Structures are given as C-alpha cells and as structure tokens.
C-alpha cells in the first residue's frame, strides 16, 4: 500500500518559508499565525483527524464491505417496512401448548338455541376456528354458519370492555365493585316490587339453577324467557292434539314424502344441522328406491324451497285451506280421518287448485304419494303458521299414520319454557303501574325483539333500575342504568341440555379478553351480597358442585367424579340413559275446534321470516355473516321485501325501489326485491336487521321489519293478512353477488343448463339408464405443454349436488380458515366480494315458476390451468400434487389470471381490505386475533384463491413424515368439507385407486363444469337427481 504523507518534509517546510514571494504583510513580516495557517492550507475541516496511516488495518475488501453495509443500512433505514414488533416467547410454558401446534377444546356454542357441540381450535391460547364436535349426538361434528362466525363476535372491537353506568345521556366507565354495590342495594330495596329477568331460551340446567337460586333469595323475581322466532304455536297445537307439551323430533331420514308448508326446515326452522343431515341421507343416489320426495308450498323461495322436487308457490294465508282440502281429498279417497268431517268438508282440492292457480297435476300426484307412502310421509307446517294449520296437519299425519316418523328415543325437553305473550303484556302492565323495581336484560334485547305495540320501550323507561347484561350495546341496553359486559361463549363455563339423553358441556378456551364476567357469575356475585366477592372460578365451582351433587349421581357413571368431570369436559358431551316422555295419544276431538278459514284473501299478506345472516339480530354486527350471500337472493348486507314479478309490475316497482307497507297502523318503508317464484301479493321480509344500537359493522344495515309485528297477531305473530302496500319514494341499492333477471330474454334464460354447467336428471331417468347423463370425461388430448406427472397424491374434490342444499355454511368455514377479509357493502355492489368459495344459484324455467339449481364453485385446480400460463411473473404455479398454487409475494397483480379463469374463482385485493372497512376494524389488534396464523394475510394488489386448504395438507404431510407413514388423501379434510352438514363435499387423493374420489370421478353421474375447455378440472360434480315424475310438470 502506498503510504500517504501527511506532513511536509521539514526541509521542504523551511524552503517554503524562505521564498521571496509574499501575499500579505503578515506573511512578509513572518507573523506566526500566518505561518501556521500556511501549513494548513484548507483550514480546519472534518477530514483533519482522518489519518490514512491509521487505516492500515482496514483492507480494501473491508472498506468495501463497510461502505456496502452502510449503504444497506441507509437503504433499510429509509424503507417503509416498519417493525411489526417482537414475537415474545412464553416465559412460563403453559401445559398442553406447543407453540405452532393447535390445541382443540370441546365446548358448546350458544349461537342459537340448539346448543351444538363444538371443537374449538386454539393457537397459542387464542381460539381461531370452530368446528363441530364429532362426539356430539345431535350435531355430529358439524356446525352451521352462525356457529362458525361466532368466533368474530369474540374478537368484535365493539364488545364492551368494562361495566358502564348511566350518567345523564352518557354511559361512564365504572368498577364492577361500584356497580355491584349499587345493584345489590337496589335488589335489596326492591322489597315487594317485582324484579324482572328477561332472558332468551335457557337450556342450561345449571344456569337455570342460578336463576332458581336468585328467585329463592329474591322471591319477588319473575323470569321471562322469549325468542323472536319460536316453536310455541307448533307445541300448543301438539298439546291440543296429543296432550303432551312438545312436538316430537322427527326421523327425517325415514320420510319418503315430505310436504313442507311455509317451512324452511333445511334453513332456519328447527335444528338445521341435524335436519339437513337426515334429509340428505334420504337423497342418496346409491339408493334410488329410498329417494325422498320434497313438496314445498311457500310464499317466497327458501333454502328448503330451492331443494324441493315440487315447489308450489302459495300465499301463506292459504296454507290452511290447502291442508283442509287435502284432508277432504284423502277422505274421499277412503282414508279415515280422525276428526269430524265438518271441519274440512267443502274444501275440494280442485277448487283450491283453481283459486290459487296451483297445478292440479301436482296436487293429484301429492295425494297419490301421500296415500302410497302412508307411515313414511310427513306434512310439516312452518313455525310461523297459525295454530289451526298445525292442528290440521297433525290430523293429516295421524290419518296417514305418519306418526311412525316421530322419534320416541329422544325428545326436546326445555329446561325453561318460553313465556306466553300474555305474561309479557302483564309485565308491561306491572311496569306501568309502578310495580317493577328492577329489570334485568339477561343477554337479551326485548326493546328490539318484542312487538312494538307491547309498548315495552316506553314502559321500561319508568323502571328505576334497568340492568343490561350484554356482550355489546343493543337497543335495550341503551335505555338502561347499567350495562354489564358479559363473556363470550368461548370465555364461559356451562352445561346444556337441549334434548333428552345427553348434556353438552361448555368450557372457556380463552381468559376473558376484557373486564367482563359471565352472566351467571354476575347473578351469583349479587346473591352473595355484601361484602362483594368476586372470583373468576365462582361459576366454574358452582357448575362443578351442581354436577357433583345433582347431576352426576343420576348418570350412573363408573368413574369417580373428578375423572368423570375431566372426561366430560374433554369429550364435551355426557351421554346417559334417560327416559323419554311419551308422545301421548291422539285426541279425536282436536279437529272439532278447527275454525273456518276466511274464504277471501284480499290484499297483501306480509310474512316475516328469520334472517339467514343476522339471525334474530344477534349477528348483525358480524361482518362474515352479513357478507355471506343470502342463500336464495344472494343479497348481502341488507334485508328486503321479496315480492313476485307480477306484484312488482302491478305496484310499478323495480328491484330496490322502496315500497311502503302498512299493517293496521304499523308502517314500514323497505326496498322491494323481485324474487322469482314468489307468490303473488305476498311480501316476505326477514327480521333481524335494522337495529338502532349496534356496532360499527351493523350500523345502518337493513331495515327493522319487526315494527310490523303486533302482540295481537290475529293470524300468527309473523304473518299479517290484509296489509296495504303502495309504492314508496326513492330507491335503494341492494348488494347482490349475482345478477338478477336472467329471465329477461332468450339469450340469458336457462343459460347454465344450455352450457352444461348444470347437468341434472330425474331419479326415474337414472333408474332407467344409469348412463343417461352421458357427460364426457376429461380425455387425453395433445397439449403444447408437457403433462404434469403427479407422482404421489393428487388432490381432488367431489361435490355431490344431490346433497348440497346451498346453505353457505362452507363459505363461512372457508372465510374463517383462510383469513378472508370482509369487504363491505360498497365493494359487493361493485362485485369485489372476496369469498374463495361460493354457492352459485341458477334459476331455470320461468320467473313465475323457477327451478333452482345450486352449485358450489371454487377453484377447480385444473390440470391445464388457464390461469397458470398467463401469469407473467410465474406467481401462480402447478404443484406436483395437482394444486394451482398462489405465491402472494411474487404476485404483482396484473389480474390476467382472473380474466383467464373460466370459473372466475380468483379474488383480487382491490384495496387493502383490512384497512378499507369502516374504522379499519379488521386491522384492530383484537380482530386480528381471529386470523389463522397458518395462512398469510394478503396485502393490497394481490390475487388470491382457494388452494384446497394447502396449510392443512402441509400439516398432515409433515405429520405423516414425522410418524413415518405413507401420506394418504384421507389424512386431510378441507375446511368446507368439515363444515358441510350434508357431507356433500368429499376430498381426497385421485391417484389412490381405492379412494372415494377416484371412484366418483369415474361415476356415471360425474361431470365437470366447462369440460369442453379441456381445463381438466379436479372438482367433480355429481349430477343432481330430481325426484319428479316425467308426466307431471
């Protein structure tokens, strides 16, 4: 290295000074400071201390390394990639937790009243996914959409975090102690005045015991239990006919002929999880002789109506006449009717058919079927129909000895009966006369749910102490003095007994996230009185003690209690022998009191149904549910008034135009929606929307149609005749995921059938010729590109369209598993919904009498995938096991793949959707906890799609490798498959010759969507067989 001289040679210095040249007088006179400065030509600078000789230790390479390191630092320091924080290891390793491995806990969901058993998947202590508990005798490992979606209720940023006390018009944060003190003294001072506890269904014995204890301590307490939709009418009709309290459970799987009257038993009536499974057992194409046949008479299409073999549109107030006409017809055909003929004589089926323009052929076929299948047919009226329809249907079923279908091995035995509406009216009376000291809304919202003419809202304001125990604010809590935040299901202990023969256990899977308490705990704390003691184990111990003392002895377990208890919690269910109350015997005089139907149905009839999405309003702040397309109309984020095309024409309204509905003096303005297949002059509206006090997500969503309800409910609380409907002013945008009005012209009618997207047949055809479908199977054509070899497993899916009912439960399961964002109504309006899995609904036929075909549509994982070859950056590639993979990091978002996908199953992040939604709540720390850590959260500008739950495949593969065994297709279950109640989705290895997938791919009913494009899809559809008769249209 060349040494750089820093200083002048002393000799040179001398010479320099001795020159004759001078530049200033100072220099001339040899001023010392000048001489010094002349040595330092450039003055003092930053490089002064830079001494290259000291740098000897730094080689050139090191120097370059340092320079590049600083450049890299500068580069990194200036980049936008902010630190996302640290991953902190457990200081104390909790038992049972292996970081990175999920832990499953059995528990019970209270999303609805059926208390399905669930298995909750937790990762590092946080619940991330809900699945069914396979040991549960009713739900058998399945769940519904609401139950799946309840996980984001746990992580809802609108949850209350601490107790609130009213102060003027505001609610202020309070300590539990302060609140408890105030309430306990209010309870103690209530003296003889009533304490009203208003709750939903209670089917937990221990929870009931807490209430009993409360009543014991405060004998002036009354408990009111209500549900917006309930089985009260069905049960009271049953009692009239059979003398026992509850309508029995039904062996749906053994019913050959099912006649539904304004019922949606596959959707929202009753225990959907069980009913759909049993129903679909009767639609097994391997057993064509046992194929059931479903007749549905309804006002607007429901999920059940979509699946009907014969769907007959009928206004709900004509159902009674239908049943009477059927009774009359059967009587004429020689069936003995166990009731006096005076009730039904005079109602001929012919005149009924004429009056309501119902196809006579269909009715005749129905009568023929009913007579032929005595003992295995069922007439099932919907829960919203009036009592006389149920009584008449009971007579009909009795006459056809269909009572054989009633289950005698199990029964629903309510822990606490629902309160009658008279009792609720009396409560309002008591409040108004000042006899109620305290009202406790026990996780309920009566202000929103009760018919407005109870005047509950006005009345309750007069109560000196109103306490609401709620998860998040609702219409009722807004009126109260205290709002007490309660735990979510997943933070709670409990036991449930929805039916005879078993208990379903609930255990917390996460510590309460906020300063909340379980509602039973709050009551127990109050019961202890002063001094206030709270202990988070309080209800746990209470539950355990109750079981040890009262329940365990009756179960005859061979285990000691501790073992028993642990096993019960582990399994999530306790099954034991229990006697079932008898059905009772039919009372032939039941038919005597049947009223005459009003012969003239003038004006409009308004039918109110429960929402598929929002439930009774409980899920109105749940983005997953609101964005789940309505199973029939595919509308998201709203409810609407479904009317028929003819009615729309006569009112001169189009989709989205407001109509004004008047029932008595109750009015509602709501957008209309033309529902193909709706009965004329019938308006069907779903309840559960339009809550006034709700969180970010639910605010302004839908319209509150419960304002139309009346306590009188002359016909039924949910069906109102003689209402007046006029065109309102203005219109409204309904966000649907599918276009409407494909009936309009020749080009678009039946287009799915014309393109062989939907291929169907009838049971008859299939019996005659199993190969009737004659669907071409993928063939081996020459290709420009090399063929994928697929060594090892090759993934394939089979969707049995005979079993798929189009409910959409799988969609929510997929959303939950794959961290799919909520996009909001504005984005659905411009067709940017993100769900990877969708249920396509196709109408065929006419707008008056459409036939509905559903088709699950997801990535077909084509062998010749059109998406793969067009991606310019190779961000979507083919895996050796046959998946079309998506590499998010590589994706630049040209969207070419989406254009070229004939199935349009790719989804693009047009925005950062987690940030896009109101208040960015999807990015909040709380909501993010719901994310599955195994799945990347996609950023803006990236394409995404279904990959058959690749994370599950990888998990199963590593497990197989770890356990030194062969990796099998059956090791993996996709999220949609797991959630499907009817097992319509099957998944596995195509290369495995013994697998069901391999078998079904070559089945005669198998077909591929758009097979002629030679995309070679790996999703096989098994054609739907309709159980119709050729000559009967």
């Amino acid at each position, binding site marked *: 290295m060349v040494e750089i001289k820093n200083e002048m040679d002393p000799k040179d210095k001398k010479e320099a000074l001795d020159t004759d040249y001078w530049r200033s007088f100072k220099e001339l006179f040899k001023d010392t400071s000048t001489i010094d400065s002349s040595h330092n030509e450039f003055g003092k600078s930053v490089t002064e201390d830079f001494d290259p000789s000291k740098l000897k230790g730094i080689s050139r390479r090191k120097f370059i390394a340092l320079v590049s390191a600083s450049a890299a630092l500068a580069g990194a320091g200036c980049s936008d990639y902010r630190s996302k924080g640290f991953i902190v290891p457990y200081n104390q390793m909790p038992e049972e937790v292996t970081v990175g491995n999920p832990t499953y806990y059995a528990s019970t969901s209270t999303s609805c009243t059926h208390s399905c058993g669930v298995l909750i998947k937790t990762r590092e202590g946080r619940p991330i996914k809900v699945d069914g508990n396979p040991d549960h005798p009713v739900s058998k490992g399945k769940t519904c959409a609401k139950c799946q979606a309840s996980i984001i209720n746990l992580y809802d940023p609108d949850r209350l975090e601490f107790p609130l006390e009213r102060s003027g018009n505001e609610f202020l944060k309070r300590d539990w102690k302060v609140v408890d003190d105030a309430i306990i003294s209010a309870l103690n001072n209530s003296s003889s005045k009533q304490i009203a506890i208003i709750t939903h269904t209670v089917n937990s014995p221990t929870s009931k015991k807490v209430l009993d204890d409360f009543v014991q301590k405060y004998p002036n307490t009354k408990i009111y239990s209500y549900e917006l939709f309930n089985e009260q009418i069905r049960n009271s009709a049953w009692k009239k006919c059979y003398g026992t309290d509850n309508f029995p459970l039904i062996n749906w799987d053994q019913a050959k002929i099912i006649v539904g009257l304004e019922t949606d038993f596959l959707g929202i009536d009753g225990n959907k999880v069980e009913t759909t499974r049993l129903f679909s057992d009767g639609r097994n194409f391997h057993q064509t002789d046992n194929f059931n046949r479903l007749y549905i008479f309804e006002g607007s299409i429901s999920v059940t109506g979509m699946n009907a073999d014969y769907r007959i549109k009928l206004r709900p107030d004509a159902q009674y006449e239908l049943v009477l006409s059927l009774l009359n017809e059967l009587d004429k055909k020689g069936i003995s009717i166990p009731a006096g003929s005076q009730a039904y004589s005079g109602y001929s089926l012919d005149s009924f058919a004429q009056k309501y323009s119902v196809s006579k052929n269909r009715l005749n076929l129905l009568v023929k079927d009913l007579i032929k299948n005595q003992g295995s047919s069922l007439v099932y009226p919907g829960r919203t129909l009036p009592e006389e329809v149920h009584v008449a249907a009971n007579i009909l079923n009795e006459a056809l000895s269909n009572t054989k279908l009633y289950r005698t091995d199990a029964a629903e035995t309510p822990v606490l009966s629902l309160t009658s509406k008279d009792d609720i009216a009396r409560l309002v009376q008591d409040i108004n006369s000042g006899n109620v000291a305290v009202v406790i809304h026990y996780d309920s919202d009566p202000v929103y749910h009760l018919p407005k003419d109870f005047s509950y809202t006005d009345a309750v304001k007069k109560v000196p102490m109103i306490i609401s125990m709620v998860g998040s604010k609702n219409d009722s809590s807004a009126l109260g003095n205290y709002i007490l935040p309660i735990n979510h299901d997943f933070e709670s202990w409990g036991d449930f007994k929805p039916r005879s023969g078993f208990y379903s256990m609930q255990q917390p899977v996460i510590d309460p996230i906020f300063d909340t308490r379980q509602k039973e705990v709050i009551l127990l704390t109050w019961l202890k009185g002063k001094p206030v003691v709270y202990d988070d184990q309080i209800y746990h111990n209470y539950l355990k003690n109750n079981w040890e003392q009262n329940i365990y002895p009756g179960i005859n377990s061979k285990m000691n209690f501790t073992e028993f208890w642990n096993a019960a919690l582990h399994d999530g269910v306790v099954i034991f022998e229990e006697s079932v109350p008898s059905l009772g015997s039919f009372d032939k005089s039941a038919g005597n009191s049947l009223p005459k139907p009003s012969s003239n149905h003038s004006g409009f009839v308004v039918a109110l149904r429960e929402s598929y999405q929002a439930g009774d309003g409980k899920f109105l702040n749940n983005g997953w549910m609101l964005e789940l397309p309505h199973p029939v109309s595919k509308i998201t984020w709203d409810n609407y008034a479904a009317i028929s095309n003819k009615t729309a024409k006569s009112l001169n309204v189009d989709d989205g135009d407001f109509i004004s509905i008047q029932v008595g003096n109750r009015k509602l303005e709501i957008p209309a929606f033309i529902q193909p297949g709706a009965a004329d002059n019938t308006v069907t509206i779903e309840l559960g929307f339009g809550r006034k006090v709700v969180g970010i997500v639910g605010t302004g969503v839908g319209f509150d149609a419960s304002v139309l309800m009346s306590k009188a409910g002359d016909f039924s609380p949910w069906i109102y005749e003689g209402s007046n409907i006029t065109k309102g002013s203005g219109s409204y945008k309904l966000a649907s995921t599918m276009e409407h009005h494909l009936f309009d012209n020749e080009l678009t009618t039946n287009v*799915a059938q014309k*393109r062989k997207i939907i291929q169907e047949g009838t049971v008859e055809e299939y019996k005659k010729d199993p190969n009737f479908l004659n669907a071409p199977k993928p063939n081996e054509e020459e290709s420009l590109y090399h063929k994928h070899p697929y060594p090892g497993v090759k993934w394939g899916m089979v969707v049995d369209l005979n079993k798929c009912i189009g409910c959409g439960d799988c969609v929510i399961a997929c959303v939950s598993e794959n961290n799919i964002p909520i996009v909001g109504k504005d984005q659905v309006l411009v067709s940017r919904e993100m769900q990877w899995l969708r249920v396509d609904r196709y109408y065929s036929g006419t707008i008056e009498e459409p036939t509905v075909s559903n088709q699950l549509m997801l990535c077909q994982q084509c062998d010749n995938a059109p998406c793969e*070859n067009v*991606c*310019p950056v190779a961000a979507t590639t083919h895996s050796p096991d046959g998946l079309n993979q998506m590499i998010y990091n590589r994706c*630049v978002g040209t969207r070419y793949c989406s254009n070229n996908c004939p199935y349009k199953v*790719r989804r693009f992040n047009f*925005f950062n959707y987690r940030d896009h939604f109101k208040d960015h709540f999807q990015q909040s720390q709380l909501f993010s906890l719901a994310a599955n850590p195994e799945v990347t959260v996609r950023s803006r500008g990236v394409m995404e799609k279904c990959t058959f739950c690749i994370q599950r495949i990888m998990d199963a593969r590593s497990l197989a490798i770890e356990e030194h065994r062969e990796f099998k297709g059956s090791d993996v279950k996709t999220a949609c498959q797991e959630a499907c109640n009817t097992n319509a989705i099957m998944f596995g290895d195509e290369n495995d010759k013994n697998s069901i997938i391999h078998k079904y791919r070559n089945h005669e009913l198998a077909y591929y969507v758009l097979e002629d*494009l030679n995309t070679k899809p790996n999703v096989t559809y098994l054609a739907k067989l309709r159980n119709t008769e050729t000559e009967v249209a």
Partner: protein
Amino acid sequence: MAIDYSLELAAIEGNPPLKELDEIIIKPMVTKPSRKYQIVLAITTSLLIIGAICIGITFYYGIGMWGNNQPVAWAFDITNFVFWIGIGHAGTLISAILYLLRQQWRNGIARFAEAMTIFAVMCAGIFPIIHTGRPWLAGYLIPYPNQHVMWPNFISPLVWDVFAVSTYFTVSLVFWYVGLIPDFATLRDRTTNKIRKTIYSVFSLGWRNSSRQWQHYEKVYMILAGLATPLVLSVHTVVSWDFAAAIIPGWHSTIFPPYFVAGAIFSGFAMVSTVLIFIRKIFDMEHIITLDHLEKMNKIILLTGSMVGYAYIIEWFMAWYSGSPVELFTTLNRAFGPYAWGYWIMVSCNVFFPQLFWFKKIRRSVPITLVIVILVNVGMWFERFVIIVASLSRDFLPSSWHYYKPTLVDMGILFGSFGLFFTLVLLFARTLPVVSLAEIKSIVPGAQPSHGENQHE
C-alpha cells in the same frame, strides 16, 4: 426499375425556395408562442395534471379506485393501453414502410407521425405499469438475473408484451432521432442563441452535411426503416395475443392479429390526421402538409376501416361457425346485451362513417375529414372497450356476470393520457421541426433527378 416520378402529385404545393421552407418549418420554434397555443397548452397540461393526480390516488389507495371488478379485471387500463399502442402504428407505417416503398409524399408528415408514435407508446407504456396491483414490483416482469433464480413466465403473453412494447419504443426513438440529426445540424447552423447552439450541437453529433455523412445516414435510415417495418406488424400482433391466447369467449380468436394490426393503422392514421389538420392550419404549413396528404391518409383510413369492418363480420361468422354456444352468446351479447351501446358506437364510427371516404369530395373536405377521423378515434377506443369489457363482463359462468362501470378516476386517467399525449405534441411542435427539414427539401419540385421539362425552365 425506372419510376416516373412526374406521374406523382407534387408532394408539396408551389415551388417554395428552400430557405423559405426552412423558415416556415422553424418559425414555431423561434417565435413567441401565441395566446391560442398557450390556452391549448394550459388545457392539455391541466388534463395531464388531472391524470397524474388520478394515478397518484390509484397508487395510494389501490386499483379499487377504478371500476374494475370480478369478472371485469381489465377495463379502462388495458383499453387505453391497446388504444395508444394502436395510435403509434401510423407513425411507424408512415416513416418506415412508406419510406421503403418510396412514397415521397410521406416526407411532409413522417416526422410528425414518428413523434406521435413515440408519444403514443409513452402513453401506452404507462398503463401496463399502473394497472398492476403492486406497481412497485412491476420490475418482476423484466427478465434479470436474481438470487431467486426466478425468471418471468416466458409463456405469458404479458411478458411478450413487455418485449414488444419496449422494443417498439426503442426502435421508434432511435429511428426518430436518426432522422433528426441533419435537422439538428441545420438548427445549430441557424441559431444565434448560445444555449440552443450548445444543445443542437450536442444532438447533431457533429453533422456537417458531408456527402459521406449523407451516404452513411441514408444507409442507417434504411436499415432502421427495415428494422421498424416488422414492428408495425409484430407489436400489435403481440398485443392481440394478450387476448387471443386467453380462453375467454370474444378473446380466443385467431383473427385477432391481422384485425388488431389493421385497427391500429386505422386509428393511428385517424389520430395523425386529427393532429395534422390543426398543425398545418396553426403553423401555416398548408402547402407542405397538403390536401393531397390528407386525401391519401383518408384512403388508407378507408382501406383499413374496411378491413376492420370485415373483421367484425368475420367475428359473427366465426361465432356461428365455431358451433360454440358461449362464443355465439358473446357475439350476440356484444350487439344486444348490456354493452350494446358501446358496440354500436364502435360499428358506426369504425365502419359506417369511414365509408364516406369513397367520395372524393368528402376525402378532400377538411372539416368533414376532421369529424370522421375524430369519430374513428372514438370508435377505435370503443372497439377495445367492447372487446375487453363486454367479453369479460359475461363470460362462461353466468353466476359471475357483472356489469362494469368506470369511476371518475378511470375517466381522469383516460383524459390524463390524452393530456400527456397532446402536451408532448404541443411541446414537440415548438421545440423541434415538425416537418423534416432535410427530407422535405428532397421532394420540392426539381430536387429529384428527372428528365422532365420542369427541370430546365
């Protein structure tokens, strides 16, 4: 082969002295811009700024600011891209193909057309980048060695696009610049302004008008013309493969390459006409860019317009002949579905109106020509819109069908691209000779070797 040039119409009118030609052409560069020019420039730059803001909004919030949806993942973005690429084609055709065919009349308009090619390709080039969801990663489309050993997907037509468009831009730019070298020298020699002189000196690369230089120059120009010629056909062919290689009905069609090339030349000539009509008026170049020029271009518009019309008819035939119900549906849906308005704008502007050019009177009428060429521009934009949006909005599965509606941002970017184009055109018109000084002199009467009478007057 002996060519009798006297049979051709004079490429420029009158017999202006060469010096006067220079002066007319250079005048806009040395005079102060007029008020009109300033107003027009203000309008175009405003549009440009609106476009820039809209692109900024898109970058900040995401593609969601546009109307694109599922299934219409491409809409205005790619429509604009194809439209602008098409506009560029006239320039290359005029400068390269007509040069090789010794069409002397091209000399008056070639420079301008070439400049328009470059500007149009610049406008077009914006869209493939901004249409990506993550434009900051658009570099992934370019093959470069990297530590992931990750190359672009060479079987994707979008990668071919990258090559086609970048090649096109490079060749056009070099061709244009080479043509400008003698003009830079002339400008250098004429100017007295020091700064200008320096700039012109640098760009003229020491051009001294020596015979040797001319000899080399002519060779290079010819070779470049030869290189550019296949591009006229190839670039839009490759662009059309974006659609033809896809399987979407309405896209998947072998007719696309010739159809697109004809359409590109068609729209390109229309755009050149549109701009030249103004330029010749504003800059008093009516005898350099003559009515004959316009008429000749109108003839090409008539020819290519008829080819486009033929393609439209063939699409109907193929829709029926293919036997594919989806294909037939798409064609019917274009004409009678929700985007029927777009289809009929396209057909009337591209097929019906240009047929008026069969009449000589109309061909030679500047106002009518202006109206028709503007309609052709509109029609050709709609052609791309119909192909892209109408096909995507209703493809195979009816469940996914959805109507596309553009947003304000979409419109802003579309107008912004026009703003960019016209701003560049206006700036070009004032900074560089819009007609080639060197070439135009070669076609004044008497410049060509001839044995005709007019040489010895």
